[in-house]
């Protein structure tokens, strides 16, 4: 039996009230808020955040990582490998990227289920994340939101089994971005609905039910993607599902999160599911993927985690100018401050365990965990001077406390002022690093923090990922 072993979702803490966008462009607002990835987040960092939660507590035997997104930070260079490094996967972990379609996440899910069913993998972590940008003032700017979801597909200890699936493809051009496009392009609204989304979704869901001899009444929850509330409501009406069983698509709360949307909705549905529940799950994009999940007794395991609920309620508001700045949508005057040192490829490779998974070392002689502040290797113990007598020690999963901090007005950051802290890890070890996702007026010495995988300032044309501390 193949199914979902673990599930999680990540929604960035930042929200932009759509009224702000409507006021800016004098277009009116569609209501609600959009979740906005922080200036230091992207599809990879959000996938890492979702993956870390998904792997808790200590899910073993994950030997594949499939990363789905239409907004991979690199056109050439794999997101899955970066994510796998950050969550400290075994190097034999099979990594693959899925992209170019809003269906990328469910395609990855299907491929993962097939791999597990065939016995080629024990279990596979699938991430789905997106950070799509609508052109300022345009039809997508208000509705799009940022987020990530993650699932582990396996064959034991399942939260829900996959009872069936049905997919069709459709070469329908409704939304697209060509190689050079920052913003989504699209066809005319009713054309997209009437010739694209509605008929193919209806057909696929009907065929799924026919294939498995099920009727709408056999499902306790219906989870499906739509591009906005109207499309979502219209399909509910057309399919004749009981509206109370249809999962909230979260457009009002966080917006349309693209590839992540169906995963976040599924995570929310599973968090409230009961053993025996049957869930219909459908996703759209260049065709349709549909699945039937059957919830097991294990579902109690995640009920109290309420990851989606917590992520939905933890929020900080930003203004529209900040949003434009964070997404690089306004040119800014070059800083008159000196350039900061750029990252270099060779040491990033040499110290990859440090840089990607925040490994330091622990002295075998005196037991002190230690990590170098600028990513150098430690050969001699900073306490007892023993040489080369260390074991690897991971800091990324350790909590810590803020020992002292410096608010830095001069720091090149898109969220000024910068905040840097001296972090004392619980269990030993100290690191000086940047902080993120904090409320400046609540920063206190002794404040508990945890580590999060983020982008540092850019340089050398690469995306400079490292770890920052954030308040717990």
């Amino acid at each position: 039996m193949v199914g979902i072993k673990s599930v999680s979702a990540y929604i960035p803490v930042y929200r932009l009230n759509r009224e702000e966008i409507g006021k800016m462009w004098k277009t009116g607002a569609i209501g609600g808020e959009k979740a906005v990835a922080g200036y230091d987040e992207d599809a990879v960092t959000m996938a890492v955040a979702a993956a870390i939660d998904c792997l808790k507590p200590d899910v073993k035997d994950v030997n594949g990582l499939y990363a789905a997104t239409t907004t991979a930070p690199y056109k050439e260079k794999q997101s899955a490998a970066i994510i796998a490094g950050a969550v400290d996967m075994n190097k034999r972990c099979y990594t693959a990227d899925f992209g170019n379609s809003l269906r990328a996440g469910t395609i990855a899910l299907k491929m993962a289920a097939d791999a597990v069913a065939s016995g080629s993998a024990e279990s596979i972590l699938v991430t789905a994340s997106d950070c799509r940008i609508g052109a300022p003032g345009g039809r997508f700017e208000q509705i799009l939101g940022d987020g990530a979801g993650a699932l582990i597909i396996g064959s034991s200890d399942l939260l829900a089994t996959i009872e069936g699936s049905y997919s069709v493809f459709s070469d329908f051009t409704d939304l697209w971005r060509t190689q050079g496009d920052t913003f989504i392009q699209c066809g005319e609204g009713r054309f997209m609905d009437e010739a694209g989304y509605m008929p193919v979704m209806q057909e696929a869901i009907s065929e799924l039910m026919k294939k498995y001899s099920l009727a709408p009444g056999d499902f306790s929850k219906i989870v499906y993607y739509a591009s906005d509330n109207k499309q979502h409501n219209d399909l509910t009406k057309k399919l004749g599902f009981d509206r109370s069983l249809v999962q909230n698509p979260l457009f009002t709360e966080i917006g349309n999160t693209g590839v992540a949307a169906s995963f976040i909705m599924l995570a929310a549905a599973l968090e409230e599911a009961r053993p025996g529940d049957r869930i219909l799950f459908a996703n759209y994009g260049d065709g349709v993927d549909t699945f039937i999940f059957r919830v097991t007794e294990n579902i109690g395991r995640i009920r109290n985690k309420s990851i989606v609920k917590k992520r939905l309620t933890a929020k900080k508001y930003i203004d529209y100018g900040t949003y434009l700045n964070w997404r690089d949508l306004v040119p800014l005057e070059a800083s008159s401050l000196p350039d900061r040192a750029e990252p270099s490829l060779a040491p990033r490779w040499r110290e990859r365990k440090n840089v990607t998974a925040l490994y330091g070392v622990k002295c075998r002689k005196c037991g002190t965990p230690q990590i170098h502040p600028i990513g150098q290797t430690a050969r001699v113990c900073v306490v007892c001077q023993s040489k080369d007598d260390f074991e690897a020690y991971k800091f990324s999963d350790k909590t810590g406390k803020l020992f002292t901090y410096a608010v830095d007005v001069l720091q090149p950051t898109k969220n000024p002022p910068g905040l840097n802290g001296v972090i004392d890890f619980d269990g030993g070890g100290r690191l000086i690093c940047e902080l993120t996702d904090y409320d400046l007026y609540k920063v206190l010495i002794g404040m508990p923090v945890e580590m999060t995988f983020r982008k540092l300032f850019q340089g050398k044309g690469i995306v400079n990922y490292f770890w920052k501390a954030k308040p717990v």
Partner: protein
Amino acid sequence: MESIKDKVAIVGMGCTRFGERWDMGVEDLLVEAAYEAFQDAGMEPKEIQAAWLGTVFSGMSALTLAPLGLQYIPVTRVENMCATGSEALRAASYAVAAGVCDIALAIGVEKLKDSGQTGVKGPSIIGDNTDGSSAIGSGYSAPASFAYLGTRYFHHYGLNPDEGKRLLAEIAVKNHYNGSLNPKAHFHNILTVEQVIKAPIVAWPLGLFDCCGVSDGAAAAIVTRADMAKNFRSDPVYVKGLAISVGARQGSMRQDYDYVHIDENVLAAKRVYAEAGIKDPRKEISMAEVHDCFTCHELIVYEDLGFSPRGKARDDIDAGTFTLKGELPVNTDGGLKCFGHPLGASGLRMMYEVYKQLQGKAGPRQVKNPHLGMTHNLGGNAGNGVGCCVVVGNEKG
């Protein structure tokens, strides 16, 4: 182990006006400082037998000294972050003490303002990740790297933000007052505590006036054997001790480091006092020039150098101990804060003031009857530092 005490003397010094010297290049600054020193020592340039040039950013090799036109003598460029100027003096002093030369030039220079940028490049100052060779680069500024001290000091000693800011402001006010009496200082404005407190924040708790000037400048010293010193002048200044202490990033990596002191400072001071035979620095040191790159560092330095007991610097600040008329005047020339901080020149600029004070030539800033003076630098920052102390006196012991 032998001591350097009374083996070498400074017989001539020079120092340019510090500031945004749009009118002068590195070559002008070097010539200005060196020729003032030559003249002060009553010496021809050709008498210099070896030279040590200190600079952090303003030249890569000994050739940086080429503008002086010295004829094929040995020249070495030295660099030790903000202790660079003092490092040049150490090198010249040790060479003379070792007898490999009798007359040596120590000169430091920095031309920061030709970069067209505001502030000092951070990462190279922090240490060994020279540009482009770091795994992750570096983001925070020099003020932030010192602000950690202020934040923790306030917390450790229970100062609320207003009390803490006021304490730091007193240091800036003192140094600006002293600098206002000094025509060579970068700034000449007298500040009030209120002005310092209300200045825009650069890196909390440091405001604009808690941070030193980013300046251009050069300073030079001519060092000779102590027994030759009186051939050049009647009032030479004798080196009593030279000490540095270099950390291994303990403060950045070990939880037992408290961010309310700096071991590199404490150890450099301890060593220099031992070498100079000083038992009670507060009583024996007549005046000191210390590394007030940021006011919160001067605060901690009072305690690190043993001028104030731990946690009691506040009492001494309130008592005016370190003012020009106080018990132990500190940064009589305005300090880095007001005189300015051209990195490679600063250690020698400090010595220039101590030298003038010990000769009784400090004009309106003259302290009463000084015997021993001291300079102190910290290269790097809390937890990643090079501490350096030099003690000199106007009497041969």
